[in-house]
């Protein structure tokens, strides 16, 4: 069913049988006079892949940076596991971020560290006292899950774009997050590698039972990875529905993505 911004958040929550893990209501964010998010509302249910579809510069990345607490919204409600993110202290944000992974568009692998050190970094930072063997086992398991165990001692500069994306995903998964935020996961990749990443996102959802917010304007990615799609136009949730439902829409603002 395609719904528009007018549908209330409460209705969306009660109409679904699943728990709401992210709740966004009337979110506003502006940079100077440029209003990027203007009364945006949406929800993410447990175990669901929600794709946020929008043109470049429409505020998709700003939205997930608000969710993870890298940017502070100007107004509105943004609850992750029931806690309003803008109100969290830095310590509480750190705790929340253990449960929320983030795959950056640029992968953001640490250049000065090997793949192993990149993966060990979040483990060490969260003070989980583990033996060297345990840490090695976790790192190798994460790399096996993305099909790149042989890269463990390589430096990021030695990896291809697709490999970097996979290693970035392995680093995101290493703390077993319950929610994963993907910022344009297939941007800059060739079509074959992009499809591999799409399948990997679905595999991760099934294997780890994660909920995900996926920012994309790659329609193949949207089709393959989404359970539900919200269309971000002019800073609002313009429409929402499944890929199949939206693809049949006659609305010009929605059609432009499918043509």
């Amino acid at each position, binding site marked *: 069913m395609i719904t528009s911004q007018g549908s209330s958040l409460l209705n969306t929550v009660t109409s679904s049988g699943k728990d709401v893990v992210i709740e966004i209501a009337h979110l506003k964010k502006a940079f100077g006079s440029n209003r990027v998010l203007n009364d945006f509302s949406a929800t993410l249910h447990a175990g669901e892949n929600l794709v946020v579809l929008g043109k470049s510069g429409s505020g998709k990345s700003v939205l997930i*940076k608000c969710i*993870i607490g*890298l940017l502070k919204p100007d107004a509105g409600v943004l609850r992750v596991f029931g806690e309003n993110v803008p109100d969290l202290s*830095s310590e509480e944000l*750190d705790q929340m*971020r*253990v449960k*929320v*992974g*983030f795959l*950056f*568009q*640029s992968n*953001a*692998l*640490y*250049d*000065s560290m090997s793949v192993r050190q990149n993966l060990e*970094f*979040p483990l060490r*930072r*969260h003070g989980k006292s583990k033996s060297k063997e345990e840490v090695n086992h976790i790192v190798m398991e994460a790399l096996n899950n993305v099909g790149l165990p042989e890269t463990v001692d390589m430096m990021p500069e030695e990896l291809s774009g697709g490999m970097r994306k996979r290693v970035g995903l392995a680093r995101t998964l290493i703390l077993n997050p319950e929610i994963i935020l993907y910022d344009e996961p297939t941007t800059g990749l060739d079509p074959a590698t992009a499809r591999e990443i799409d399948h990997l996102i679905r595999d991760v959802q099934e294997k780890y039972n994660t909920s995900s917010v996926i920012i994309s304007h790659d329609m193949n990615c949207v089709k393959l990875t989404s359970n539900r799609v919200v269309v971000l136009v002019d800073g609002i949730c313009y429409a929402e529905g499944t890929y199949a439902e939206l693809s049949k829409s006659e609305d010009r603002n929605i059609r432009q993505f499918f043509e």
Partner: protein
Amino acid sequence: MALNKGITRILEEAGGIARFTGRFFREWFRPRYEFSEFLRQCYLIGYTSLPLVGITAFIMGLVLTIQSRPTLAEFGAESWLPAMVGVSIVREIGPVITALICAGKIGSSIGAELGSMKVTEQIDAMEVSGTNPFKYLAVTRILATTLMVPLLVVLADAIAFYGSYLGVNIKGVTSMHLFYNQVFVKLTYSDVIPSISKSFFFGFAIGVIGCYKGFYTSKGTEGVGVSANSAVVVSSLLIFIIDLLAVQITDLLGLT
């Protein structure tokens, strides 16, 4: 109008640096302490700068001695050469030249490294990994430069003395014992203490400016170059301002 804009930009920059420095002092004492990263930075900043600082200091001591000799010879004061060069190196040339070299090598490297991390979202990645990037990246580097620059200054002074000793012996014969005796007889605590004290401030300024420029890099890869460049320019300028203030304070305290 353009002048107003320029003044506003300078004041904004000064305000930004002041806020950044304030944050450093707030974050410094709060756990978690990034001790291993601090030690790694001490190695990178101190140890790896030693060859460049050493070569420069050696040449500085040698050249200063060779160029001072004719003037002193005119007054029949050649025997004062070791003492004069020693005091010049310890009080002024050693700290300032070493700090300027560090501003060029360390300041630009910090500005470029953090700037590159900023534009490739590595700093954001660190934050979402539950790490305070300011503590991990900035506090450790600022502390390392604050401690390593004075150490490099002391080593540079020692190497410059050796260069000076060789310079003295180019046109004469002076034993090492006599040379060092003449240098240290004329050096007092009022030469050494202000010199070492201002070196801490030089190191602090290099660290703060490098990290500030890196953290506030924008405009992609072009911005990384701008950050590295302005880190060197601003920290070099600050070194001279700190030096000027240090001379005034030393003078007020009667340590000249």
